[in-house]
């Protein structure tokens, strides 16, 4: 898979997302650059998925702006944002279950606006430690951990500038989480900017350059893993629920 050598920057400024009477995001700003892994943590209901939904276009922005390399993408339909280079995975894995593994990866290539051949599919699968699986097997039959990796493989086929990962370690054992961490690091090293939403603090601390902390829809802290671990606001927000 051709590595993304250009430098990209995603700038989200003062995002506000409201659903009915509830404000899920309160003027949240975030910046993600090529090559870095930014962690996004916070207690349940803090707004992490809302932020992901806002950036990927699933949720409507009430206020604020999102720009990729200076080009405004806030308010665009989901598929246009994906084609622009902002690609995501989902909390409950959303694979095309009755399609084959190869077809799932091929589907990702729509966002890259080109068809990809068998060699490139194999390459992406190898990157995500799926090199040994049968390309023609049904995606829904894969074990859970492999399904997660396939979803990431599909996202890589989209040639993302920015990759949004929604709790990719959920349900994985420590060994699998480790492997996932290495995968995320290698994706960033190839030039993709990664936003990692996670609960697994071990993974977050190992892999992220910076961490942003949300609570009640607002950004309460932002810094290196070491800084965040010491931050009183963060400790209070979690009340010791961090692993």
């Amino acid at each position, binding site marked *: 898979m051709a590595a993304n050598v250009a430098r990209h920057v995603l700038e989200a400024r003062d995002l506000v997302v409201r659903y009915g009477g509830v404000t899920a995001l309160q003027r949240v700003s975030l910046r993600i650059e090529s090559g870095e892994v930014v962690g996004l943590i916070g207690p349940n209901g803090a707004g992490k998925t809302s932020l992901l939904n806002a950036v*990927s276009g*699933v949720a409507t922005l009430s206020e604020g702006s999102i720009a990729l390399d200076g080009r405004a993408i806030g308010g665009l*339909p*989901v*598929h246009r944002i*994906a*084609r622009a280079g902002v*690609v*995501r995975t*989902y909390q409950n894995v*959303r*694979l*095309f*279950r*009755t*399609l*084959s593994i190869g*077809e799932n990866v*091929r*589907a*990702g290539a*729509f*966002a*890259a*606006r080109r*068809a990809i051949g068998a060699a490139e599919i194999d390459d992406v699968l190898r990157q995500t430690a799926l090199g040994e699986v049968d390309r*023609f097997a*049904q995606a829904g039959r894969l074990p859970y951990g492999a399904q997660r990796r396939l979803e990431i493989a*599909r996202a890589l086929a*989209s040639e993302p500038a920015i990759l949004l990962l929604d709790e990719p370690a959920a349900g994985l054992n420590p060994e699998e989480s480790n492997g996932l961490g290495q995968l995320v690091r290698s994706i960033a090293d190839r030039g993709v900017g990664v936003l990692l939403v996670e609960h697994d603090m071990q993974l977050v601390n190992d892999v992220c350059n910076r961490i942003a902390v949300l609570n009640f829809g607002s950004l309460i802290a932002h810094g290196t893993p070491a800084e965040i671990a010491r931050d009183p606001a963060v400790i209070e927000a979690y009340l010791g629920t961090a692993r």
Partner: protein
Amino acid sequence: MIAFLAAHSKLIDQIGINALLAVSLMISLRAGQLALAQVACMGIAAYAGSVGAIAYGWNLPTSMAAGTLCAMAAAALLALPTARLRGVFLAIATIGFGEVARIVEINVPITGGAEGLANIPNDANTAWIYGTLVAALAALLAFSRGPWVLALDAVREDEVAARGCGIDVGTVRFGALVAGGAVAGLAGVLYAHANFFITPGDFGFGRMEQVLVYSVIGGTTSAVGSALGAAALTILPEAIRFLHDYREITTGALLLGFIIFAPRGLAGLWQRT
């Protein structure tokens, strides 16, 4: 053999037309859309082509082209109010469209009203019908390796994920509807020219239900399967003629059996997944 085929030529023609209809429905079902407007599009094309043939002396290819364009236009028009509908809602809306079309056909003078339209030139023979069917199947098979059908499958499997892959779901659904309308339109004109007499009742919900049954028995995501399903169910009433009063019950039981025990239909015999 030749004598057998000649004796059953009407049935063979019927099979061909029903197969085209089943294929037209399959296109929408493949995209996960329960859009039941194909028979209505069939009727619109049948009337458009027939009126042209009777009034302006169009030959069959012209009739087919004109009729199919009308069917596609109708499908495109239908796509607008149904753009946000899914599942049962979409089914009901498209059924409603069919009813409106049928009622308009009964009342508009140019169609001959409820008595129907007669004296349509009888120039659609078996060759034309099967030529069209084979062309349609070949086209679909050619597309099935490519990105368009992959997009259909992705939309069927998971619309949200499909969008996230950069697929424009709205365009895919629109395309499926219009493509299905086109194939149904071809079937409609062929039907009219093969039967030289059409009535609005030919294009009602009853026929749409039948086509749905063909597709389900054959395999809702397989073009060849759908065609085979149509063939099997067109022959069935003739084959079980000896059952007399039990024909309907047998058909219903067969349908029930398939959907409960063999939901992938005949295509399940050869489809990988």
